[in-house]
């Protein structure tokens, strides 16, 4: 833990600068530049709203915002996890020339994707104003919920960064697993309304993303408190996962260069 804190202090400026540079580069290299960060989730929201809201007659309150919240969180998790698998190989030219704690590469990438998620959440607030969604102080629960999303994502990414170095086809496996989790997370449907019991409860309790997204929707759209004991458990699991990932990286990171 002490080493982690010292390294974070030492490499924090580098991590932030690398994230800022990456964002600037993405803006500079694309025709519609930063607008894509908004256009992509917005278009997916319209597609899901058309298919499930109009064609399949889903009737959740504030359905468009409901989907948008799910997509914002999912996109963040999905992008971070996918990129973590190839993180060391993608940064081969750097990690083979200078030492840096390899999880700083993940943190920098999470900052880039986190920035995009925040833009989506700002749009969500705009949509909430537009649809006149009633708001209560319970909306503040979104802060701890987002923090747990970030810690959980970091934990998964650290483990996958490690496995991605040693298992060549990990990226293929992860693509399939992520698609499966996507459908089990209720991004575009309400798990409680669609699935029978006890499947719905099992999914909402056993799938951290489903649990956290459901909590965010509850506090942002429906003036309800999230399931506090459950998110407490997922916070502990996320912290344990992150600690395990950091420990694994510290133990093995200097052998990564020998493999890549």
């Amino acid at each position, binding site marked *: 833990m002490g080493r982690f804190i010292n390294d974070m202090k030492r490499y924090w400026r580098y991590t932030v600068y690398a994230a800022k540079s990456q964002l600037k580069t993405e803006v500079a290299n694309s025709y519609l530049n930063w607008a894509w960060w908004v256009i992509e989730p917005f278009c997916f929201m319209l597609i899901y709203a058309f298919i499930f809201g109009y064609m399949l007659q889903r009737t959740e309150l504030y359905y468009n915002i409901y989907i948008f919240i799910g997509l914002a969180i999912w996109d963040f998790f999905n992008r971070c996890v996918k990129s973590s698998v190839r993180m060391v190989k993608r940064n081969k030219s750097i990690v083979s020339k200078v030492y840096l704690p390899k999880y700083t590469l993940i943190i920098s990438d999470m900052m880039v994707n986190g920035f995009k998620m925040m833009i989506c959440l700002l749009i969500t607030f705009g949509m909430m104003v537009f649809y006149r969604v009633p708001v209560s102080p319970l909306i503040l629960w979104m802060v701890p919920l987002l923090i747990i999303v970030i810690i959980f994502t970091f934990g998964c990414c650290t483990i996958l960064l490690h496995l991605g170095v040693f298992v060549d086809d990990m990226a293929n*496996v992860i693509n399939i697993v992520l698609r499966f989790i996507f459908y089990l997370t209720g991004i575009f449907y309400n798990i409680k309304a669609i699935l029978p019991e006890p499947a719905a409860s099992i999914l909402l309790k056993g799938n951290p993303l489903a649990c956290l997204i459901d909590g965010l929707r509850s506090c942002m759209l429906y003036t309800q408190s999230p399931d506090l004991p459950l998110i407490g458990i997922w916070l502990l699991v996320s912290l344990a996962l992150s600690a395990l990932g950091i420990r694994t990286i510290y133990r093995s990171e200097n*052998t990564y260069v020998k493999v890549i």
Partner: protein
Amino acid sequence: MDEIAITVKDLKIRYKSVQAYSIKKSLLRLKSVDTKAFEAVRGVSFEVKKGEILGITGKNGSGKSTLLRALANIFSPDEGTIDLHGHSISLLAIGVGFKSDLTGRENIMLSGMLLGFSEQEVRDRMPEIIEFAGLGDFIDMPVRTYSSGMHSKLAFSITAILETDIMLIDEVLSVGDEKFKKKSYAKMKSLINQRNRTVVIVSHNLGTLEELCDTVMWLHDGKIVRMGEPKAVLKEYREFMK
């Protein structure tokens, strides 16, 4: 007593059981993945005094670059220890790591910060680095648009201008075009001649090693064959290579 900058004790570095494998291959074989061990560095021990210039030579595959990377903390020792006595260290190698989508200027900042310099320190030295690299307007272009020579020029300039206590140099003395080669060689000599800097150079260029180094190490199959006064060691090495 002379201050010691680097202490290496019984260092062993192996490449074993760390090869990447695919799930398909593992399933088809239905047995454990091939774990051939190859020892690149085999129980090497030496000390480098502060301000000393150590040259390392040896035929291809003798473990020179592996040893250098272990000193830079990029490879972990499988056995033995490396003690840098609290000194900062940088590895100057051909094709130093850059983020290819970022500009040369941004990569200077990132490389400098990775070498342990603050944002302000790198910013202060930035004009000097850019001038030395001589890349003109390319400095604000993504590094992926650079030729390999331009890559090396930028890499050399960053490490040469942002000075660390210990410099590790891997075959970099022949960087870029003729003009830059001369400039980088002169800069290298001036850096090396600052007596408070410890330098470890890996090179096949025996003339350079003889001219620049205080001590030369001859590595063969991961072991030290001779280490000592450059003339004597290099004479034996030349005869061996005949």
